[in-house]
């Protein structure tokens, strides 16, 4: 086991994937000379050359479309969009082109591309640099969506995403970049679609992804002091998501709370709740609850943003309510 920061794990995964496969290229704004706006691709241009680590103009739509064309022509592009909010500008490339190419061309060719982008608040970045828009992409047949919560899963999932034959939206959380965590020495790949159980507990299942996993873990610690044992499931992949692991956990605890930082209404949690209300109905001993952001843009002020983001206290309150 070695300790590694989340950002370093991303960098290591990119580096290892490029070393393993010469068809992997990086493309995006400031990914080459600057090493990425957050530093995720630092040193990679020096190691792999400017032909494989490519700075683009500020042209999100074209760089994402170019990734699709390159993926159809023999490369495995990893595109970076500096903030998830800017994915509004790449929607055609992702939704109409990448997601549908395999299907609408009769399975002639897959589109092996990854679009990396950071989401999330907590940094006072305001309404256009903080959004969690993963539900949009999870709603599109043909796309896969991943959101790691810690350095080990960031490494393992990014390697799996780059190796995957289909387009993957790989979502990092800005507030996690500096996080340190244990990473196994052999740097295992984590298959897409497999959740992890980070804490076992008999009383309630808390399902989360990304930074919200840490909110859930903090809530679980608080609840343990009250004698409530919460099981924390890190979803890791949002599309496909690990329905079997969530159902198995629910079958042990009979109570479910879903936590995410994205807006609650029409969010990822809504899908999880709907599925569990269907296939897990007989296991339920309480209402399935969601803890997520209110229906408002992410505010700038520290006080407003703190009130906006899901807190361990709100998660704990939801747990108490479903157990009541």
């Amino acid at each position, binding site marked *: 086991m070695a300790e590694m920061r989340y950002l370093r794990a991303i960098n290591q995964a990119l580096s290892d994937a490029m070393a393993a496969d010469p068809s992997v290229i990086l493309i995006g704004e400031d990914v080459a000379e600057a090493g990425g706006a957050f530093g995720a691709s630092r040193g990679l241009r020096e190691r792999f050359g400017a032909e494989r680590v490519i700075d683009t103009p500020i042209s999100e739509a074209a760089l994402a*479309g170019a990734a699709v*064309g*390159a993926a159809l022509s023999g490369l495995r592009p990893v595109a970076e969009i500096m903030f998830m909010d800017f994915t509004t500008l790449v929607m055609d490339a992702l939704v109409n082109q990448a997601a549908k190419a395999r299907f*609408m061309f*009769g399975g002639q060719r897959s589109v092996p591309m990854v679009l990396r982008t950071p989401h999330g608040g907590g940094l006072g970045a305001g309404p256009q640099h903080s959004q969690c828009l993963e539900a949009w992409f999870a709603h599109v047949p043909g796309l896969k969506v991943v959101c790691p919560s810690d350095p080990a899963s960031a490494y393992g999932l990014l390697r799996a995403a780059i190796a995957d034959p*289909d387009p993957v939206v790989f979502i990092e959380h800005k507030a996690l970049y500096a996080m340190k965590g244990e990473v196994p020495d052999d740097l295992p790949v984590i298959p897409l*679609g497999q959740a992890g159980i980070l804490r076992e507990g008999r009383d309630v299942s808390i399902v989360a992804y990304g930074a919200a996993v840490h909110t859930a873990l903090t809530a679980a610690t608080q609840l343990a002091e009250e004698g409530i044992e919460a099981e924390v499931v890190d979803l890791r992949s949002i599309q496909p998501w690990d329905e079997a692991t969530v159902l198995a956990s629910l079958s042990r605890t009979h109570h479910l709370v879903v936590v995410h930082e994205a807006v609650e209404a029409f969010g990822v949690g809504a899908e999880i709740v709907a599925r569990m209300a269907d296939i897990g109905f007989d296991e339920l001993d309480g209402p399935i609850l969601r803890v997520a952001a209110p229906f408002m843009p992410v505010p700038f002020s520290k006080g407003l943003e703190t009130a906006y983001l899901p807190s361990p206290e709100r998660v704990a309150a939801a747990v108490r309510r479903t157990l009541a």
Partner: protein
Amino acid sequence: MSEPTTSAAAGTGHNAAAELLALYRSLVLIRRCEERLSTMFADGEVPGFIHLSIGQEAVSAGVMAALTPEDTIASTHRGHGHAIAKGLSLDGFFAELLARDTGLCRGRGGSMHVADMSVGMLGANGIVGAGLSIALGSALAHRTLKNDAIAVAFFGDGALAEGLMHECLNMAALWKLPLLFVCENNGWGEFLPTSRQLSFSLEGLAAAYGIPHVAIDGNDVAVVAAHAAHIVAEVRSEGPRILECLTTRVRGHFEGDAQKYRDPDELAALSERDPLGIAAGQLTAMGVGEAALSDITTEIAARIEAAVAAARAAPAPLFEAAMADVYTGAQIRQPARQGGV
């Protein structure tokens, strides 16, 4: 308009006639395929929307004659000609337009998504301008993989107003990519003349991005082929170029569009610029007999009827197979109804 450095039309002798005859064959193939589709569409046999390129065939035939099988193209919603000239399977084409399981896209794409990766045809596209960035990425891949191929982006003058146009021109010029921009300028963007949509010319745009540009008669296949031959060589060795082909949209924006917004005199005058008529006249002047031309038409008609018959006899697509192709390997959970209805 500039003159080509070499021209099949300007040439003399057997080779020039043989080259033009091959181009004529391509024109006839595209025209007859689309006329057949038009009939079947009117009969209700072809579902959905189709956009015909009748009047624009010389662009497809002339440009594609300059490409290798390894070169890639990204096309438009009016893309039948591009696909046919690039050499896609004719059986697969008609089967797709008739929504059969044997179609190139197994009945999932239809006219606006005809693609044949095996011949470098990366797809027609339902989104105006979207093919530009796909061709850009394909050109980037060709250069990264050092395979000496080029990519071609076909687009109409309507796409000039798309933001992606500017992003792609900039990136292609900045990176000197092996990318040929081919504008099929037919003067119309859907139902409105592009003269009422654009405040600029493609020539001016090309100058702004520093990309060499030439505007040519896109209805004279010999002219298109001659220009394409040397421009494609330039793209392969030097970087991006823009070939603006002035052409004519004879049919409506989509099939079934009565074009009440067009001047009847303008429509009537289009026959004088018919690419097939122009090429046939040149061939006659070169001494190619009427029989040689009618033989081509007869042979192609038979080939098309065989493709149509095979498509009609082919099975409909299977829902399960379609579901299995959303993702590679179909490992994803589909919304099964095991717990619900």
